């Protein structure tokens, strides 16, 4: 009996010891400090918007005066919230204080990752397409693949930027003080500043996001609305905004975003999936040029991903310019150069090592991830946090980055579907891959184009990091060769094309009033 007791004791002691170790994983920005901008960019109302013709396109009515009973009532609302603060409310305040643009960018990356799953085939071997009108039926809308994601990031951040430019205009026009600068007895849970608080920049960002996401992620409205409600409440609880700041900001954000929604509805993305006639034509045209066309290596064969995405309306340039950025053709599939490059891919995978696999997987950004544009947003966000940007500068820089990434996707997809050339493993079945094989033509590498564009505009925005961004872009680009899914020329040309797209963002950055 003694031995049984002893054994039980040993086992339970082991259980207790092991279970007492915390295994909770801390996400990178869980403990990010409250945003405390070094410079409030008070002139941002004069910055050049993207779609708005002027910051006054949307009218924001003058706020009620701070000496009215109505305003006093709104101060009292804050105080009543603060009277019985729960731990959960404190957590909300802390979470949202890190920055509105940052948090909504993270929410968007999360939605993309959730929806970045290719539909399963139907019984007849064809594939169903997600339906925006019925987003929760399988396959759920959207399939947030890299081009879709690039466009989503661009629209959300661009609409937030325009809405904030308008907000800054009205902030300086009406110059209504923040509640804590009106009532010094008010408790404030976030850093104080002198920025006029009407309309609320946080509500502007949330309002724009909610409105854009109705279009982009229609099946996730419950989650999105919940986040928006929490965001607005957090600002009132924190004492940073009165309710009228929030309401005016939200209305402004929504109204500006509606202009972007109207653009998105007519930007030709809706037709990007193409149809059987287009898929056949791309293949036949390639054969007619004497080249081996791309063929899906999925089973059953899946149509190429968004083959008409190259026709989508660009943000940073007109469509003629976008087409002019298309590079010349890849090495002919019958050329010696093509044979040499194919052999290089085979040898690369065959002789891979742990470090190369690490690079492949670090940059893979495949199924169920935020995609390469989302990865670059994460890289940018980490650096922007350290810069203590104002919300409007956060939005501007995110918009510049994401318009580059979307336009990079457009030029890249135009190139891919112009040349429609095969993946290495299609022409040489010996070639196995160290990451998922993307289901669209090879030339040029999407990762390389995205990364070239991102590194270029980020290097302009944060010059001291330019070399680091360039090194990352090179590594991301080569990761596709290491992974066995791209030829070297796909990667090298992709980087150059991406850089060319990024230069248009630099051109805009130099003239938008923000520097």
């Amino acid at each position, binding site marked *: 009996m003694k031995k049984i007791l002893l054994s039980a004791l040993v086992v339970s002691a082991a259980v207790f010891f092991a279970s007492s170790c915390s295994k909770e994983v801390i996400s990178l920005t869980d403990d990010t400090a409250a945003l405390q901008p070094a410079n409030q960019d008070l002139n941002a109302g004069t910055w050049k918007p993207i779609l708005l013709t002027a910051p006054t396109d949307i009218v924001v009515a003058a706020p009620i005066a701070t000496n009215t009973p109505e305003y006093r009532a709104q101060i009292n609302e804050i105080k009543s919230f603060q009277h019985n603060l729960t731990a959960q409310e404190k957590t909300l305040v802390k979470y949202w204080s890190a920055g509105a643009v940052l948090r909504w960018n*993270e929410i968007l990356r999360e939605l993309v990752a*959730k929806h970045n799953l290719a539909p399963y085939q139907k019984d007849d071997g064809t594939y169903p397409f997600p339906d925006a009108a019925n987003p929760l039926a399988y396959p759920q809308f959207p399939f947030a693949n890299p081009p879709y994601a690039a466009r989503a990031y661009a629209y959300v951040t661009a609409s937030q930027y325009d809405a904030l430019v308008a907000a800054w205009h009205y902030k300086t026009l009406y110059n209504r003080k923040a509640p804590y600068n009106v009532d010094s007895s008010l408790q404030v849970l976030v850093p104080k500043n002198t920025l006029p608080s009407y309309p609320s920049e946080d509500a502007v960002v949330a309002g724009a996001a909610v409105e854009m996401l109705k279009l982009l992620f229609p099946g996730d409205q419950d989650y999105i609305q919940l986040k928006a409600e929490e965001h607005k409440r957090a600002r009132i609880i924190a004492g940073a905004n009165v309710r009228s700041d929030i309401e005016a900001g939200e209305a402004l954000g929504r109204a500006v975003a509606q202009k972007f929604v109207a653009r998105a509805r007519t930007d030709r993305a809706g037709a990007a999936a193409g149809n059987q006639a287009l898929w056949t034509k791309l293949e036949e045209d390639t054969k007619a040029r004497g080249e081996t066309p791309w063929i899906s290596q999925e089973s059953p064969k899946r149509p190429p991903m968004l083959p008409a995405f190259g026709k989508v309306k660009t943000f940073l340039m007109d469509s003629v310019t976008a087409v002019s950025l298309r590079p010349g053709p890849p090495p002919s599939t019958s050329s010696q150069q093509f044979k040499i490059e194919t052999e290089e891919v085979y040898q690369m995978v065959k002789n891979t090592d*742990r470090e190369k696999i690490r690079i492949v997987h670090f940059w893979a950004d495949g199924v169920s991830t935020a995609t390469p544009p989302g990865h670059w947003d994460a890289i940018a966000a980490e650096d922007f946090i350290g810069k203590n940007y104002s919300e409007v500068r956060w939005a501007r820089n995110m918009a510049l980055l994401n318009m580059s990434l979307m336009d990079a996707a457009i030029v890249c997809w135009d190139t891919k579907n112009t040349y429609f050339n095969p993946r290495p*493993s299609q022409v040489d079945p010996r070639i196995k891959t160290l990451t998922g094989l993307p289901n669209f033509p090879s030339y040029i590498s999407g990762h390389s184009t995205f990364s070239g564009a991102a590194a270029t505009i980020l290097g302009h925005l944060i010059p001291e990091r330019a070399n680091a961004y360039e090194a990352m872009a090179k590594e991301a680009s080569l990761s596709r060769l290491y992974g066995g899914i791209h030829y070297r020329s796909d990667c090298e040309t992709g980087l150059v094309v991406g850089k060319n797209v990024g230069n248009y963002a630099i051109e805009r950055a130099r003239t938008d009033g923000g520097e």
Partner: protein
Amino acid sequence: MLKLKTTIAMIAFVLLAGHTTLAQTDMDAIMMSKKQLCIGPMYSYSSWKNYWEGTLKRENLNIGTVSSNAYSLMGAYGINNKLNVLFGAPYITTKASAGTLKGMSGIQDLSLFVKWMPIEKEAGPGTFSMYTIGGVSFPLTNYVADFLPLSIGLRSKTVSARLMLDYQVNNLFVTASGTYVFRDNITIDRTSYYTNYLIQSNEVQMPDGSNLNVRAGYRSGKLIAEAVLNKWTTQGGFDITRNNMPFPSNRMNATTLGVNFKYNVTKNHTLAIVGGGNTTIAGRNMGQSTTYYGGLFYVLDFSPKQKSTSTNNQPAKTN
């Protein structure tokens, strides 16, 4: 002295479930005698075509059949008749029969167990014994965990605690054990991943696991033949979503049914062959694998007394 009747059937699991029980010696009611080392190579082949995506059973034409080969070295040493140390480590290769994904290979985890038999006594017509087994496992190499279903393992360091009861009447026995496996978090090669939400970290929280094992059959000094039912349950984790890839922290469950045998070839029981197989009868977020294995064990006697004799070739507990 071949007390190691063992299987590495569990290796098949590792491919998609990743709990690191290697040698079923740690789950059987057999002890090595004092200063006896039993050691030998083991080969195991496992494959599956269907798998459970969450609870939905499906095939995947872009993977085909996933197979793995495991070549292990395993052993057991008797510190004394009631306290044994067990160890095992495999080299594993994986392969998918369809699609383009490249299989992986490498040395996986080292597993170590301490097995203690505090109780052995006559009870009714037979002998009752009780065991406690403590184990640890950890990766021996920097292999890739986040490439399921072709990873060779999950990389998680584990600590396990097991209580095992055995009852034998003549040559018939039944053994039952329950195990709790603590799994340490792992790090992967990327800095962000989605489970039920997005996590910006290269660290993955690994849910613990538990295991129930029931085995019954014939056991003598010459031959052991048994049927084994095993149920591995991950305590937490998330389901693979529709048409998604598996992930190390999935809720991986599997129930397998199998048979094992051990046969002492030589008269003095210094050499034995072992073999067996099992198949998965229920699962979640795992392949429906079927596994076959076979191996050889050789006993080295380090005791100061004379070399093994037939009397001490009996399992210690039945002496």
